[in-house]
């Protein structure tokens, strides 16, 4: 699997993402600077986490209009896999590649902790390597992860099976106690209509080895590799 990782001023998960991809795929991904107007050949384009442009105006707003983003949008339209993690998810909603918006956490605080997530469906290229029916554990680290979409959009996402992950308790209940940031429907990640663009607030790239405290991030990348092989 060939991957490209786009780096913006203020990205801070780019290095973890590059290392995780190289470890898992056995192939060094290509870092791409935000001023580029073209992307190298890649099966997967990753928009990594961070606080691009200091979250000025709105989280992800400036990065979403960076020169490289026209190429990212073109790739998405051409059917490439695009993964936006945390700030990358915010960029995907800001460009309109994914619906809704990520707002200030309901509790107004920056949250950095591990959360449990339900994998809403395990028949997608991104989620196929996850076991069905068992919550996974991944870290979140964000100030603006409160997913908002209007009722009609939420209904459409649900109806089209486009919810990827929800915040749940350890035993899998998607209730208010398990919702760290006020996201509607406990939504932690969503897909595009072709299931090839995934935006998620949790960080799979941070938990890919037991030595790092867990490896629930690993199947996301492994599943994609399987889907591409």
């Amino acid at each position, binding site marked *: 699997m060939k991957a490209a990782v786009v780096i913006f001023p203020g990205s801070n998960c780019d290095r973890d993402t590059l290392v995780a991809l190289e470890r898992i795929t056995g192939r060094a991904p290509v870092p791409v600077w935000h001023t580029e107007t073209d992307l190298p050949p890649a099966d997967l384009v990753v928009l990594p986490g961070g606080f691009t442009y200091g979250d000025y105006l*709105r989280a992800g707003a400036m990065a979403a209009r960076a020169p490289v983003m026209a190429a990212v949008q073109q790739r998405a339209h051409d059917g490439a896999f695009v993964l936006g993690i945390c700030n990358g998810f915010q960029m995907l909603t800001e460009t309109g590649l994914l619906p809704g*918006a990520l707002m200030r956490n309901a509790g107004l605080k920056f949250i950095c902790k591990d959360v449990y997530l339900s994998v809403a469906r395990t028949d997608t290229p991104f989620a196929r390597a996850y076991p069905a029916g068992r919550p996974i554990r991944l870290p979140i680290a964000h100030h603006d992860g409160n997913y*908002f979409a209007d009722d009609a959009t939420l209904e459409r996402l649900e109806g089209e099976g486009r919810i990827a992950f929800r915040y749940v308790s350890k035993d899998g209940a998607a209730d208010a106690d398990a919702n760290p940031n006020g996201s509607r429907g406990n939504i932690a990640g969503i897909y595009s209509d072709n299931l090839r663009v995934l935006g998620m607030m949790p960080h799979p790239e941070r938990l890919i080895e037991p030595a790092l405290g867990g490896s629930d991030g690993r199947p996301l990348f492994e599943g994609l590799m399987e889907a591409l092989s």
Partner: protein
Amino acid sequence: MKARVHITLKTGVLDPQGKAIEKTLANLGFGGINTVRQGKIIELDLAETDPAKAQAQVTSMCEQLLANTVIENYSVELDAAQ
């Protein structure tokens, strides 16, 4: 020409910052506040002197960057006197 863009959250969009301000104002003893909503003001100094053109230009800026119309409304106020 100067332009001022007011950006506010749409009705129905939760505004936790507005809620926190509301609570603190109540703690300070201000009564009778039904709701507080927090927004943004962006001031622009434009070379354009024609109000209609300035309005169109700033509206386009709002649509493309200044506001996120999924969650925000915007209004543009022009001040031709300056």
